[in-house]
């Protein structure tokens, strides 16, 4: 199984785990990325992910194919949320099955690291202070707030 998905709904991690289950495998490694209540010194209330869907889907699938090719794992799956998320929600989930644990750990780490740097997905954080900002796009955010008395601090 090689499957990448984008979802506006809560990720049912247990259902995904069942789909990956494979009696030829001795190991299953999963990673959950959660919505955290702080970033760069700001208290986060909630956030939005925005995805360039067609390219995110093709690039996500490419990352999973690479993981299978590089590490020889049996099953790989990844789901990334988009839309509005609350604190504690699972923002991204990765699952890997393999005959042995070493390659499952390595492939899982590879997938989440590549997802973070390659998928065209953006995160807007809404802060307790009332401000908001696109993470990693601080110069844009600074522009947006040029006309306001308090500029948004640079982000991530």
């Amino acid at each position, binding site marked *: 199984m090689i499957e990448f998905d984008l979802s506006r709904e809560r990720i049912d991690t247990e259902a995904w785990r069942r789909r990956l289950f494979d009696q030829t495998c001795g190991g299953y490694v999963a990673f959950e990325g959660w919505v955290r209540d702080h970033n760069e010194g700001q208290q986060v209330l909630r956030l939005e992910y925005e995805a360039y869907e067609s390219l995110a889907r093709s690039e996500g699938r490419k990352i999973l194919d690479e993981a299978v090719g590089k590490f020889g794992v049996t099953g790989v799956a990844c789901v*990334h949320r988009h839309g509005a998320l609350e604190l504690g929600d699972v*923002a991204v989930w990765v699952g890997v099955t393999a005959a042995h644990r070493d390659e499952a750990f390595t492939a899982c780490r590879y997938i989440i690291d590549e997802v973070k740097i390659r998928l065209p*997905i953006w995160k*807007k954080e809404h802060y307790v202070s009332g401000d908001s900002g*696109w993470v990693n796009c601080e*110069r*844009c955010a600074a522009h*947006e707030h040029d006309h306001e008395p308090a500029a948004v601090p640079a982000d991530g």
Partner: protein
Amino acid sequence: MKRIHVQYFAAFRDRAGREEETVETDARDPAGLYAELEAAHSLGLGAERLKVAVNDEFAAWDRPLEDGDRIVFIPPVAGG
């Protein structure tokens, strides 16, 4: 003149004040088009911090533009 369809996401959507537009341009490649649009919309980021997609695939900045191409300039991502 070529007609190019441009789609904006995230910070660029906010800055441009629109989700998409069709532009008529003499720009030869995405680098030239970005320079025009950055000037028009004050997108606020240099091309060196961006990637570009043409027709839903990552593309080189000097890929020749063709009439009807769909372009997305991709500001720094923050998935995961």
